[in-house]
């Protein structure tokens, strides 16, 4: 079977220091995978390299068997919430519509049908009442939902999400996880940078433990062990796992 995401010997360097070093990864379609690792492990860099936002020093990345440029329309992206200025003068609806800009092509403006798509995505994240809101009036959890809605309208096969659960309230966390699970059930591949080790077991099928190098990846039940975690976090962190 064709991998949804295939990474071979990926090395990314910032100046002389490797941020990612010789990373290999295979993600099968329909997998919900967490990317876990300490700060500075290169989790965001990996996502950005897969999206072609960062030029790797070496290595090869294929999505659905093709280079990113060829399949960009089948890839959805949820950046870190803090990566944009939420005081930007725009509305929730406008932000969600941005997910359709790639499909719209040059010059054409979003019309009636695009608004319908956006509204239905906002319904999925329970934000349809907020479509006219200025984005600076949103809470952190609501901002995250808007970003998720923007990715949903992309109607992609592969989703890359950078810390979608960072700093959100419990309700939002549950809502987002439900959406991730429904994406997975409809055959989509979802890679999620995740920071909360306690919830990895209950939320995800597979996990990639990353610390500049790939420590291990595979089904959570097999690879998410104390030993591997110690290896990833350098043995400095005591990790308490929830008995599932």
């Amino acid at each position, binding site marked *: 079977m064709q991998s949804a995401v295939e990474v071979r010997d990926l090395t990314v360097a910032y100046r002389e220091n490797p941020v990612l070093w010789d990373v290999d990864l295979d993600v099968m379609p329909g997998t919900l995978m967490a990317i876990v690792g300490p700060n500075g492990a290169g989790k965001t860099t990996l996502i950005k390299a897969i999206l072609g936002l960062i030029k790797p020093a070496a290595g090869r990345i294929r999505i659905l068997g093709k280079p990113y440029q060829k399949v960009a329309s089948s890839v959805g992206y949820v950046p870190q919430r803090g990566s944009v200025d939420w005081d930007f003068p725009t*509305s929730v609806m406008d932000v969600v519509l941005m997910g359709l800009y*790639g499909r719209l092509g040059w010059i054409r403006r979003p019309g009636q049908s695009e608004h319908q798509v956006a509204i239905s995505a906002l319904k999925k994240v329970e934000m349809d009442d907020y479509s006219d809101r200025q984005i600076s009036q949103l809470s952190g959890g609501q901002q995250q939902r808007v970003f998720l809605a923007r990715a949903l309208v992309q109607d992609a096969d592969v989703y890359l999400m950078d810390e979608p659960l960072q700093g959100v309230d419990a309700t939002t966390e549950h809502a987002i996880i439900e959406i991730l699970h429904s994406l997975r059930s409809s055959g989509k591949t979802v890679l999620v940078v995740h920071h909360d080790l306690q919830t990895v077991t209950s939320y995800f099928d597979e996990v990639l433990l990353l610390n500049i190098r790939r420590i291990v990846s595979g089904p959570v039940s097999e690879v998410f062990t104390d030993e591997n975690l110690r290896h990833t976090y350098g043995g400095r962190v005591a990790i308490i796992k929830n008995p599932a």
Partner: protein
Amino acid sequence: MEQFFNDYTLRTVVLGATILGGVSGVLGTFVVLRQQSLLGDAVSHAAFPGIGITFILTGSKVPLILMVGAGISGWLATAVILLITTHSRIKYDTALGLILSVFFGVGLVLMTFIQKSPNANQAGLDSFLFGQVASLVVQDVITMTVMGAIALVIVLLFWKEFKLLAFDREFAHSLVLPVRGLDFGLTTLVVIAIIIGLQTVGVVLMSAMIIAPAVAARQWTDRLGVMTILAMCMGALSGAGGVIFSISAPNLPTGPIIVMCATAIVGISLTAAPHRGILWQWIRRSLQNRKLRSEAVLMDLFDLARTHDSLEYPHMERALRVIYPQTGTLRRQLSRLEGKGLVSKKENGAWALTPSGVQLCHRLVNERIQ
């Protein structure tokens, strides 16, 4: 005034200033939102040597030719800034400062050289420093109009791409939009907006015309489209107003007066605009403080009464004064609460919660738990 509107030259000049203000307002919106406000300053200063070099090479003082030279020089500066930031450890703001002063320095050297050279034609070139409205002729205004119109049409055509670029560049990149090309295009438009104004406002102050209308417009709206149109109008108004003021009295420099008009608009917007204005925020904050202060007194009465059988159990002011040593503040809050029917004063001078006061306390407790 009537004479003014009949004066052909004046109309020309005012029209020119209006166009320069409008165009720089529109492009400035994107500059400000992309947090590149200093870019305008660097570009306008960096355009200065271009004027000198063009004059030395061509001997021409035709504004269109000089503007092309200025544009190339200004644009070159942005390219050098980009090169420096991508290929060295020098930060963006440092690169801006460096390029601004180096280019401007070169420009001053060239201007001095030209002034001292035995060429009778050089007079008036130094007016590009602070702008010289009197030098504007119909042909210049036509040039400005055409260039400005092209810039505005391009902004309109690539509206959604520029919006996304300004809001979330990486997401734009992930949609395989050519972000480098869009950066290049937008920067080029900013350079055009700046050189349109050089003759009237001058290199030293032109960046104010990029930033000021956009900053002012941001205060009044939360929509990019409205903000852009407002910035255009405010820029145009400053341009026209500045010219009219500066020629109403002798010896007033045009550029600085235009910039002062724009500054006045910024000042009004920063203070008086609803929601974002300082005045508005101050009023809202003091209302909020007042509400919080009286709610605190109400909750204290509630806490005291909770130790008794009834939540409407009255307490003497003295009991509260332990918490609020300032008698005046406490009295004021109590009488405000009384006015709202939340507390009532008993015959013996003790204060008690009314039923609606108790109700509000329960609600506040619930809100705080959540």
